[in-house]
């Protein structure tokens, strides 16, 4: 039976604003399948985003949804989650939104280990504003603000998340949908702060400018450019050149922020009042 996406969508708000060929749609569907596999109820879900093409996603989902300011989704989400800690909070964010303007909140959300999931729609570019350099634009790639080729080194969101203290860290691509579904479900179910870096494509602002022949061409490069983590770990330095590992990099448990805060409250409330 085909999957019924409509049941999770605000069909009155469609069609979406995304360009034909944008992979944001593929990733959105992956999220909905993961949610469905976990049996989450719509009333118990909160989707939060910042600003950018990816950040329009919550508007299309029939749940509690919050479209905030550029880069600040994680901080808004933290407030929601603290007060309603029984809600499932999922943050969807572009690479610019989460790693440039929102970089500080990214680090500290990882460190705090609050039970939420951040899904990074990593298309290597600022899509919404028309193709400027993002922190994940590859060295040498052409953008509207690096017309001579990008001379900045890019951020690896996976390494950053692990270093900062996230307790679940994974990377997948818009091409590997079976893996994507599995990883999303794992990330959403994980207790603690989980980060999924999803390699995906912006044909309009990145692909055309960087001599890809078609959207399909862009997607298919992930077949050759990525390697499953298990295999990656056995590869030599030379074999790894030009390739990116995908899979689950980290899945551990550490004290979760809401639970720790509730313990503080219990301690403070049972202490004899000094007031």
């Amino acid at each position: 039976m085909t999957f019924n996406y409509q049941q999770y969508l605000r069909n009155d708000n469609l069609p979406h604003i995304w360009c034909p060929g944008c992979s944001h749609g593929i990733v959105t569907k992956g999220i909905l399948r993961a949610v469905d596999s976990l049996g989450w109820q719509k009333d118990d879900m909160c989707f939060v985003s910042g600003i950018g093409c990816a950040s329009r996603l919550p508007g299309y989902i029939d749940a509690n949804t919050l479209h905030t300011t550029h880069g600040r989704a994680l901080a808004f989400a933290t407030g929601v989650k603290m007060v309603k800690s029984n809600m499932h909070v999922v943050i969807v964010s572009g690479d610019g939104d989460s790693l440039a303007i929102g970089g500080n909140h990214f680090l500290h959300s990882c460190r705090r280990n609050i039970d939420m999931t951040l899904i990074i729609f990593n298309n290597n570019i600022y899509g919404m504003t028309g193709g400027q350099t993002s922190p994940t634009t590859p060295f040498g790639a052409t953008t509207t603000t690096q017309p001579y080729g990008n001379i900045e080194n890019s951020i690896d969101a996976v390494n950053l998340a692990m270093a900062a203290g996230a307790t679940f860290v994974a990377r997948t691509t818009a091409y590997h949908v079976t893996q994507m579904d599995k990883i999303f479900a794992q990330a959403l179910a994980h207790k603690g702060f989980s980060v999924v870096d999803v390699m995906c494509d912006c044909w309009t602002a990145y692909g055309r400018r960087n001599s890809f022949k078609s959207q399909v061409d862009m997607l298919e490069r992930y077949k050759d450019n990525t390697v499953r983590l298990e295999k990656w770990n056995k590869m030599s330095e030379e074999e790894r050149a030009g390739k990116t590992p995908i899979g689950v990099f980290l899945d551990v448990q550490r004290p979760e922020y809401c639970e720790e805060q509730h313990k503080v409250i219990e301690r403070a409330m049972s202490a004899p009042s000094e007031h």
Partner: protein
Amino acid sequence: MQAFDNSRGIGARKANFTPGLKLMSGNDAIAEGALYAGCRFYAGYPITPSSEVAETLAKRLPELGGYFLQMEDEIASMAAILGASLAGAKVMTATSGPGFSLKQENIGYGCIAEIPCVIVNVMRGGPSTGVPTKPSQGDVMQARWGTHGDHPIVVFTPDSIEELFWETVRAFNIAERYRTPVILLADEIIGHMRERLFLPKPATVNVQNRRRPRRDAGDYSAYQVPRSLVPVIPDYGEGYRFHVTGLAHDETGFPTNDPAVIEDQILRLHRKIDMGFNDIVKWEAYDLEDAEIVLVSYGSSARAARAAVTRLRASGKKVGLFRLKTMWPFPEQQIRKLAKQAKAIVVPEMNMGQIVLEVERLAGGACPVIAVNRVDTEMLSPKQIIKAVKEL
């Protein structure tokens, strides 16, 4: 994980409030006022001279079942309180000049998305990092116009510890009733000074909560506008599923580019505060009945102005004080009227002249308007005001 919903201040113990006469600092009075008003969520980033608000709440909030968060910066703090408010809690953040600047984008978000919250700014010397430990009143226009775009704002300027406490309670009540951010503009002097404060019994304090839609509401739409012009928005996770955005939106809460709808929204934001004017705006008239010279002042400068009035009266001068307890919206009609009655208006403030511009505009030449300013970070003295009045 254990389900924990603390949006309505569940678990607050009476024993955690100790009514009676206290000696308290301004920053502590703000913290206590917030707790009485039902604040159960605070997020902030430390900055002098506001840090004691955070420190006191870090201790007090958990005792009442509430949450305290030290965020990574002021932008995050402002964002976190907005999220927490949408989830149903009464929320506050406190900061000072540099942090206040950082919060502005998200304060604007609170205005357009109509999210109740209280922002405390204990002003210090500026610009930039300026003079952290000394007072100023340099953020008056930033409080009004700090965000981008056209929206009204509510700003309170208390001048004593007792008033800080009560105006903090009122700030929450107004924020909840009009679904809007409310700014409490204090300064280093009243933040750090200590005065008597009579803490009331919690049950005697008028605490207002935002109106939420009833569970069985049929064709429910998040930003549907009732006659009060204040939409009734539910909390996240209560069985309504709604969308909130900082983009211009229609009644459903979803973005729109329709010029008429956008105009309607901006006008309504203004109108809902206009309609509440008499409820929101408060001032103190001190010796005004027969005053020929009117001082218009606020916050710690108004303390000096009151002392100046007393001394000038003793020497036979007919001077009075119009003290702004609410700065924005501005009591325009009242100032217009005073300008017609008075021989002159004198505006003492600890900046290069900010509110004086508003007074001048409203006086419209009906009487001279004189500024008395001080920016060396020392408190404006009654003497300086008296001198200005005598030179008229």
